[in-house]
């Protein structure tokens, strides 16, 4: 059992969720309330990682983050190591790759709030920020919760893009999914089996937790 890999996966999933939560709130809310020209295109772009093979996506990220790219070059100058094949690079890739899993449920959550309720909030004297905090977030919470859990679980299970952008550096980019692959390649069936079982257990637990929380939330709201 590669505990380092499991811990790395958890950290990666945690960071991805932490970065995506505010993004999901802002983008989900924006897409839910506004209609503008090109909205369909923006929504399609957000959904793109869902349909692209991770290898294609990973390839583009490799090119975009590489030492010779503006982003990669800037990173190298600032932090003294390259963005690809690093934990930070994995976080960035994971954040982008999980955009649909975070934004889509958040958007549905905000869309479920009747326009009149939001109007009532502002007519009650709430500033947009107060309305977000006191009315919209509590009401969109089931959607946001789903977004966060999906992102977390999906990051734990992500394989292709991690391999493309991160490689398999122990303690840096070797996640549990990569570690399982390595073990299988090395004919270490027992280790692969244990780690697979652990991953199944964690994923199952996370998703069960969401269902339980959203059911509880549903009761609280009605």
């Amino acid at each position: 059992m590669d505990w380092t890999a499991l811990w790395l996966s958890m950290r990666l999933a945690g960071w991805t969720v932490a970065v995506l939560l505010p993004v999901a709130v802002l983008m989900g809310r924006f897409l839910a309330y506004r209609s503008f020209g090109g909205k369909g295109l923006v929504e399609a772009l957000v959904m793109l990682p869902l349909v692209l093979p991770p290898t294609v996506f990973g390839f583009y990220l490799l090119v975009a983050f590489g030492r010779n790219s503006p982003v990669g070059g800037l990173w190298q100058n600032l932090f003294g190591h390259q963005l690809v094949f690093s934990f930070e690079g994995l976080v960035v890739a994971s954040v982008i790759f999980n955009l649909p899993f975070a934004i889509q449920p958040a958007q549905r959550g905000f869309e479920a709030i009747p326009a009149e309720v939001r109007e009532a909030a502002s007519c009650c004297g709430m500033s947009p920020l107060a309305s977000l905090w006191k009315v919209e977030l509590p009401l969109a919470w089931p959607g946001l919760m789903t977004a966060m859990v999906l992102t977390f679980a999906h990051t734990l299970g992500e394989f292709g893009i991690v391999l493309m952008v991160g490689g398999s550096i122990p303690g840096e980019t070797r996640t549990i999914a990569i570690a399982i692959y390595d073990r299988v390649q090395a004919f270490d069936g027992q280790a692969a089996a244990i780690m697979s079982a652990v991953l199944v257990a964690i994923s199952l637990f996370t998703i069960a937790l969401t269902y339980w929380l959203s059911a509880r939330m549903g009761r609280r709201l009605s």
Partner: protein
Amino acid sequence: MALEVMARADSPIPLDVAFRVEPGELIALVGHSGSGKTTLLRSIAGLWRPETARVAVNGTTWLDTAARVDLPPHRRRVGIVFQNYALFPHMTAAQNVMAAMDTADYAEAERVLDLVNLHGLAHRKPAHLSGGQQQRVAVARALARKPHALLLDEPFSAVDRATREKLYDEIVALRAHLAMPVVLVTHDMNEAQFLADRMVVIEKGHVVQEDTTARVMADAHALRAMGIREVAAMLPAVIAEHGDDGLTRLDAPTGPLYLPWIDAVPGTGLRVRIMAHEVILSRAFPDGLSAQNIIAGTVTRIVPGAGPGVMIHVDVGGHEILARITRRAAEQMALQPGMTVHAILKSMSIARDHVVRAPDAASTAE
């Protein structure tokens, strides 16, 4: 603290309206759906901005497109009751009310909830309240904002008839506590006649008529858009006694009025809406008639309509009854102003929701 409103727009609906509401006055904007009355209300609240508009309360300008002033809704001191109430579903009644306060104060929230007869329900969430109770929470929340203008958007349309009648009485009673201008949007003329001091009739975004409620309700031309059958007079009356046969006798300026059982104690002040098309006129005192109410009066005015009808204004003890009869009947009867006539009214023709408590009776009944 008068509310002044002027709004002009070409889209989404044409709009060209201006009116003014005095402090403590309740004005009803009446018109069909699509006439622009709700859009107008939304412009006052800041939820919509017409191309050209000015909204000012007590000298404070909320919106002035010419001067580029446009306060967002949360910076306007406005209380609004939405058609479907738009309560915050995750908050209790008290929390809903506190959400509209500058600083949350539970005792004050309970006081406001008491004011709308919701004593003891402060801890309930909207889903556990009836439609009428939800409407009361919405009213309480609007009042908790300490609004400089109170806006009611079809606030009675989502409850059943029995609840609506009760809510009318409550709003009438609440009026004593309301010092700000109140704007009621409705398509229900019965509601408007009972609740409003003045009425603005809006048709396709334009003002057809603006006047006191009594005058608008007697004006067949103004009510053309709303349906001429809405023309009605309103008489004050006091419950005298309940008969064994299920009829209630009222004392009115017209003499006694017999109506189907009214659930209130003798001495209760009422207002009775008498539809013009329900009234039959007779020159001689009719005999052997089933109708229980025969009221003698004097013809004051005869107003011809566009169609086959004429409106006869009959003075009875200083109050007016309206009778809409055919021009042919008026000619056959040779009706002239000054003539004595008998207005005949079936007890059963007065619907239960056309009888509402008088303001003073409602406020003492609190």
